[in-house]
């Protein structure tokens, strides 16, 4: 979706402010939100892509006005509520009003922690031979899917060079659309800044995206 989360190239957000000796969490609740997010992801009710889409679905004013972990919290409540794991009156009451729903997975316990603090594997066997090879000139398609996609707006319609082929990976667009993992070849595609941003852009800058094969076409 052409959402406010797709921020590459927007102006007006100001300077990047780095905080010296920044704590891992600024408030205790932020750590709890992170831990809850990791734990409920292990219940396998949704995937990482559905979880990202849950944040993209926040309305633009809410997205922009919320802090990072506030967005995570809102996403968690939304996904848990949609799937009937918690209910709105329970959030208002501050405790469970009904027994838990039966799940395929057991309760998330200490023994599961290591598994969620290491990133998973998204590589899968390829669907067919890769269409592009390193060095090919490709265009990022001018597409505007209504649901989740990982093709950023700023790259759409622009021509770049295939720099790497990573193998086939789970395709986020299909996962969120309910079409399963639908593995697709994943490429690093490099663009000149002047191709993306026009003749006034810095000629020494190049930008790459990680592009799934369905995002690309031969030039």
């Amino acid at each position, binding site marked *: 979706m052409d959402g406010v989360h797709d921020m590459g190239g927007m102006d007006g957000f100001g300077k990047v402010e780095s905080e010296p000796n920044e704590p891992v969490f600024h408030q205790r*609740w932020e750590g709890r939100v992170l831990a809850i997010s990791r734990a409920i992801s292990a219940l396998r009710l949704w995937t990482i892509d559905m979880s990202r889409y849950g944040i993209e679905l926040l309305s633009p004013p809410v997205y922009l006005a919320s802090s990072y972990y506030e967005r995570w919290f809102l996403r968690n409540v939304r996904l848990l509520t949609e799937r009937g794991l918690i209910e709105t009156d329970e959030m208002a009451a501050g405790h469970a009003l009904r027994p838990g729903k039966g799940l395929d997975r057991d309760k998330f316990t200490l023994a599961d922690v290591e598994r969620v603090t290491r990133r998973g594997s998204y590589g899968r066997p390829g669907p067919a031979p890769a269409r592009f090879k390193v060095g090919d000139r490709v265009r990022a398609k001018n597409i505007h899917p209504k649901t989740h996609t990982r093709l950023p707006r*700023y790259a759409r319609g622009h021509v770049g060079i295939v720099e790497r082929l990573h193998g086939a990976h789970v395709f986020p667009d299909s996962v969120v659309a309910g079409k399963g993992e639908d593995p697709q070849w994943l490429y690093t595609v490099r663009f000149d800044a002047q191709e993306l941003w026009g003749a006034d852009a810095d000629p020494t800058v190049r930008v790459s995206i990680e592009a799934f094969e369905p995002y690309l076409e031969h030039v």
Partner: protein
Amino acid sequence: MAAHHHDHQEGSNLSEMELRVRALETILVEKGYVETAALDRIVELYETKIGPHIGAQVVAKAWSDPAFRRSLLEDASKAVSTLAQVGRVGEHLVAVENTPQVHNMVVCTLCSCYPTDVLGLPPLWYKSFPYRSRAVKEPRAVLADFGVVLPATTDIRVWDSTAETRFLVVPMRPAETDGWSEAQLATLVTRDCMIGTGLPKKPSEVA
């Protein structure tokens, strides 16, 4: 955003977010979906165990051991997982090396993708709207916000983490570090220099 401080209960100075998050955690525990001790452990791991010191060891090794450097650039997940002091890391990690010709910088414009296995959780600025919006369009200006000025002739290469691949920048080894041990070299490697918004410390800064 600053925390919103409201007095919901007499004598309570908990923020509204603290209360709402407590409510959610309480419900999840009461319903039997998660165990409190497991949540505590996740927080503890990110606060004490999983952080940029891991990446710093990887970079210091790459600076010291040419064979490791080659395997790191070839397949970073595999290379890093061979390091006893690190242990197995997740797949799809890609190491990109700075040279006098090219400076690498990593961003996630769409959300906050970051090589957590080797750098821990991302700092606030990495997840911020200014960084996400500007890194792909005016990286030199972003670097200037960090006090980093590169020669005008150095190419800048920005990696937007739009899939599950994760990028670790291997900065250039600082001068005057001949004969340094990996442990000494690791003290020069900052988090920001492994994202590409900083440069390693100079030997004089850690002496």
